């Protein structure tokens, strides 16, 4: 392995990530440079350190209490790091279109699969490091005050290894998912495309869950004890090493830390082999059964959509299952549902109701914020067609709502059965999930109309990262402001029920109307002039 080549490739991949936004496409601008992520890391680290230090100083805590806090928190930092790199990587790194997979420089430059995997994993780890820097900054403040800086150093080293591990896992998913095309499964036709979509979702889901500490622990504890699991399963070695360190068992801690390094090396070798064996520059061609030119879309027309709107919705729904780069988006709500099912019994009916509403809203939001950016350069077709911005808005809203409402009803019914809820409560739950989906669809479209990223790059995003963060945080706040009183209305009794119901209805109507207005003005503005 040529380390110089790996370093140069890493730099290029990081620059590609930094310049993926429309505004940062100017390579001379400071925010289009790779080191900006290191700057964000440093700012996150120092901000967390300063804030935590001030808080810790203001609290009357003894050194022993602080040491306990460090010993309790530190072991989870590596787990958070793996999950951050893996989830963010799956969400944002697997969205490269087939066109870019095919033109990936690694396909034609003299770069070995292991070199590519090493470089790309490093780029993923570096790109998604700010949340980990935030955790580490907070941890250092407490560790210094407690007088246990050694714990911080070991945690930091293991967290960096864990970030890299997450990056390597993303590369494994990338190689495997690229192979999961219809031409490689010997199938043809419409069903082949559906089969590929399901296969990819299951595949990404399996990776996500296999390295999700919450799921893994909940699942494995049915078969074994906590100590045996964390010692036997490599994913938990960093965590267990930090527990041993806290107990003063330094040799065991060192052993597991070294074991973690060995596990990571094995993963890199495995990922390199997977890429060598499975990577195909372009997925094979897929044929679909011949169909005569359509005479319209009767079902969609029945919903009140015009012919152009129905055609746009039909196009988006096809893309939903056929576009490899869209499928990772489906995994997140599925993971949330699986976690709910695993933890369901302990959550209770009330929490599950909130969970259902949250997943419904979050799913609609995800679809909505990506709905414009996923047009990519084909957006100019929409400009060239004789249609108005309002036609496109109605179509986009409909193509978000169709899958979101179906998902909401299915989830609400499943929770009703799981917790043996009465028909009135299930009906209320269906309404609540649908309301959450509608409001968050408008909310997402308002952001998508203003901050979509249309760049076709090796590592594209559908929405600019800053907008994604602000949109998600504000959207989730809106959701909870709706879901908490609504769940009181569903399960409470007496006067608060009426108050909560009125609040939920009034809040939904107001926020929904505001978000709809933002979406309309955003679409009018977006379709005034081609944004690229």
């Amino acid at each position, binding site marked *: 392995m040529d380390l110089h080549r790996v370093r140069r490739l890493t730099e290029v991949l990081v620059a590609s990530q930094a310049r993926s936004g429309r505004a940062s496409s100017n390579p001379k601008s400071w925010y289009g440079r790779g080191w900006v992520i290191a700057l964000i890391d440093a700012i996150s680290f120092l901000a967390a350190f300063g804030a935590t230090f001030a808080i810790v100083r203001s609290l009357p805590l003894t050194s022993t209490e602080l040491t306990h806090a460090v010993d309790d928190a530190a072991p989870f930092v590596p787990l958070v790091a793996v999950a951050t790199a893996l989830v963010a990587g799956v969400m944002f790194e697997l969205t490269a279109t087939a066109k870019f997979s095919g033109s990936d420089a690694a396909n034609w430059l003299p770069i070995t699969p292991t070199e590519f995997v090493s470089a790309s994993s490093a780029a993923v780890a570096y790109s998604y490091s700010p949340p980990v820097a935030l955790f580490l900054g907070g941890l250092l403040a407490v560790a210094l005050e407690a007088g246990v800086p050694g714990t911080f150093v070991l945690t930091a080293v293991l967290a960096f290894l864990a970030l890299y591990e997450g990056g390597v896992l993303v590369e494994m998913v990338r190689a495997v998912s690229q192979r999961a095309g219809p031409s490689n499964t010997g199938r043809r036709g419409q069903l082949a495309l559906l089969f590929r979509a399901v296969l990819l979702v299951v595949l990404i889901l399996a990776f996500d869950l296999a390295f999700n500490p919450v799921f893994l622990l909940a699942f494995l504890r049915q078969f074994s004890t906590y100590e045996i699991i964390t010692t036997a399963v490599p994913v938990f070695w960093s965590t267990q090493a930090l527990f041993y360190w806290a107990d003063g068992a330094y040799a065991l801690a060192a052993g597991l830390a070294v074991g973690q390094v060995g596990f990571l090396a094995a993963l890199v070798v495995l990922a390199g082999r997977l890429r060598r064996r499975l990577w195909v520059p372009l997925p094979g061609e897929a044929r679909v059964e011949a169909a005569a030119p359509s005479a319209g879309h009767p079902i969609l027309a029945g919903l009140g959509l015009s012919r152009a709107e129905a055609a746009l919705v039909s196009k988006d729904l096809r893309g939903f299952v056929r576009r490899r780069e869209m499928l990772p988006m489906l995994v997140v709500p599925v993971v949330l549902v699986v976690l709910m099912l695993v933890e369901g019994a302990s959550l209770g009916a009330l929490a599950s109701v909130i969970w259902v509403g949250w997943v419904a809203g979050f799913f609609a939001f995800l679809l909505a914020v990506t709905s414009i950016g996923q047009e990519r350069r084909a957006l100019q077709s929409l400009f060239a067609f004789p249609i108005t911005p309002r036609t496109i808005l109605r179509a986009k809203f409909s193509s978000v709502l169709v899958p979101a409402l179906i998902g909401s009803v299915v989830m609400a019914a499943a929770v009703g059965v799981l917790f043996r809820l009465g028909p009135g409560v299930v009906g209320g739950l269906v309404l609540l999930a649908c309301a959450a989906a509608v409001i968050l669809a408008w909310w997402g479209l308002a952001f998508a109309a203003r901050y979509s990223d249309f760049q076709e790059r090796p590592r594209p995003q559908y929405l600019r990262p800053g907008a994604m963060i602000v949109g998600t945080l504000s959207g989730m706040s809106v959701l909870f402001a709706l879901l908490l009183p609504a769940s009181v209305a569903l399960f409470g009794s007496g006067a608060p029920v009426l108050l909560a119901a009125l609040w939920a209805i009034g809040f939904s109507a107001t926020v929904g109307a505001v978000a709809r207005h933002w979406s309309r003005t955003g679409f009018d503005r977006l379709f005034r*002039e081609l944004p690229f």
Partner: protein
Amino acid sequence: MDAIPLPSRPPDDTRPEGGPPALEVRGVSKAFGPVRALSNVSLSVPVGQIVGLLGPNGAGKSTMMKSVLGLLRPDVGEILLFGRNVREDPVGTKRQIGYVPESASLYEFLTGAEYLDFVADMYGLDPEARRARIPQFLTGFELAGHENTLISGYSQGMRQKVALIAALVHRPRLLVLDEPLNGLDPRSARVTKDLLKNLAVREGVGVLFSTHVLEIAEAICDRVVILNRGVVAASGTLSSLRDRAGLASSDLEEVFLALTGTGDLGEVVTALSH
């Protein structure tokens, strides 16, 4: 040479005689920040004529075409389609235009047939018309047999053919074609050129045609407009441009190089050869 047969126009179709040009661009300027892409550009595409838009890379050709389509808003000036300002009725004017962008971005997750069906829906083409026209075009461009393959599996030439069919399927009155022959095999390029000539002569379609291949412009264009650094360097028939350049017996390449002020190419080639 099996050119695509053209369906005749309906009897109530009245092509304007001596009416306004298919396209008229009046004093259009467009800047992107400090970069002036177009400066006071005026040109017209008469009904039934093919006008070639030529110019070096970065001359402003694509900006001009995108402005005609309403994809970009000119800072100054106006664009008239059959005498009507495109900004007053953007949807109505777009209905009359067929557009092939410089690099066709198609929906790769649709098949060729599904994409063309989608485009037909966008233009409100009735089922009978699309059943008659889409297979005709697919056969003419040798895409029959590939129409049910996802576009992601198409070669560049096949994508270009789909983009061309999408621009033609609704029988537009003005064609705006940005490098339409990119990636086409010789047969399809010939079909396209002959088809454009037929559409112009027989159907009165106006064509604004951008290309870097000067032989093509020479072969099919009635008039050419040469853009250089965002301004019209020259326009007219080829013979009038020859006269203006003082190169009476030269081909369009020599005329183009003379009118765009290109330096001594011999020196460049000699330097690059070492």
